[in-house]
């Protein structure tokens, strides 16, 4: 038992500090990806709601592809393919130029693309849930399109979308573990390094699982508060 505690200690012969650093990076990665993915998702959702058939089709194609590809594959394509593509593009403008996509960026882009596809479904459903008449009424009051979205559509959309987005976040949190295969020193990779040195796979992978579990638990607590908050106005108006 004390041996195991020593393995987790912070310091030269323990792995506590390495694993904690990895856990922190996992959180950072997820937090940076979240706004990127939601922004993509919102854009795609609005495109799906567009009147133009071509825009709609593009948006649907995007969702089909990034929902259908394994996240691991998306990650490889972005990491290797993205770098080659950008280098080639840069080479067109500057002779012998090279573009460096660091792993963190590749991870954010790949996970963001996936999150964008999944959250666009949630957001699209939420947009549709806001009755048309409300938008028309707001427009009749002389509000600009932007203000209609900000004042009328968005607050309601947010309430409807929150449970779905909370689900998306949970999936994202777990998907971050995949970036360890492109050499980002996240929780999973630091754990693998500890396993390589100590030869204690069961213990360390179990610890990693428990840390992810704690993240999930904290997230669901935060989201249920957010949901309660977002629904306040709704309860009052609806009177139940």
């Amino acid at each position: 038992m004390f041996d195991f505690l020593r393995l987790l200690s912070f310091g030269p012969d323990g792995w506590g500090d390495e694993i904690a650093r990895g856990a922190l990076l996992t959180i950072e990665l997820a937090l940076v990806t979240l706004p990127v993915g939601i922004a993509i998702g919102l854009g795609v959702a609005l495109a799906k709601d567009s009147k133009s058939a071509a825009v709609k089709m593009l948006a649907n194609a995007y969702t089909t592809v990034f929902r259908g590809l394994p996240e691991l594959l998306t990650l490889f394509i972005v990491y290797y393919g993205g770098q080659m593509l950008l280098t080639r593009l840069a080479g067109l403008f500057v002779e012998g130029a090279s573009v460096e996509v660091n792993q963190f960026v590749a991870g954010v882009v790949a996970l963001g693309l996936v999150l964008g596809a999944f959250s666009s479904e949630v957001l699209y459903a939420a947009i549709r849930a806001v009755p048309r008449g409300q938008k028309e009424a707001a427009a009749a009051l002389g509000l600009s399109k932007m203000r209609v979205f900000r004042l009328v559509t968005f607050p309601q959309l947010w309430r409807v979308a929150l449970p779905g987005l909370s689900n998306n976040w949970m999936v994202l949190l777990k998907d971050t573990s995949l970036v360890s295969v492109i050499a980002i020193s996240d929780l999973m990779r630091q754990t693998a390094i500890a396993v390589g040195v100590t030869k204690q796979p069961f213990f360390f992978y179990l610890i990693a699982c428990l840390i992810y579990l704690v993240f999930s638990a904290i997230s669901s607590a935060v989201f249920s508060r957010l949901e309660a908050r977002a629904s306040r106005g709704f309860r009052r108006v609806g009177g139940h």
Partner: protein
Amino acid sequence: MQSLLDMLGAGFLQLMGLIGLNSDLMARYGLRFLDGVWVTLQLVVLSVGIGALLAWPLAIARVEGGKWTARAAFAYSYFFRGTPLLAQTFLVYYGAGQFREQLTALGLWWFFRDAFYCAVFTFTLNTTAYQSEILRGAIQTLPIGQMEAAKALGLSKLKAYWTIIMPQAAGIGLRPLGNELILMIKSSAIASVITVYDLMGVTRLAFSRSYDMEVYLWAAVLYLVMVEVVRRVWDRLERRLNRHLLVSR
């Protein structure tokens, strides 16, 4: 079966050549990609299938079980839904290696020695958790009156579940279960990190020798085809099985 596969393979190669893909690469790895698809399908069908059988008792334990049974079932599903499949896979594959002697003594090592079985085992545990959650939700949407009516008719609880509750819950859960199947097709790519040559494993092998991005695109197309086929078949299935619901609306 084998000759049919060979024929399919030859046709596939020709088709790929026709649309102008790298023919050297195709000759070298084309058939291995089909093997990879086959392994992926086996992984998914076995784990989702076995998971479907295990998910029922777990879901019913959540609803009907006493305090401790229900809690244990909840803890199980919470653990597997709250942690990444990658971590679970490593835990089982490398963790089992650490307990080789104990597993040999129990006569189980032959199973955990094999990476494919380890993957099926982990994926099954994982999908069981998700499926049980779906089924629990479905069971709980059914009005309590149904159970009471069944009791009044003199049906045992077991019989009531088998003939009344389970068919309806399966119908309600059909759509999310289809999503779970699709998620599993995608997640199965994780098997490649523990030396299984599924579609992803073959892709990584081909890339590691050719460094040609094209192989990732082949893989992307093959995964999308699998997912789309499943999605469409499932849509039809759902429409068929839930006909009565559509009519009543």
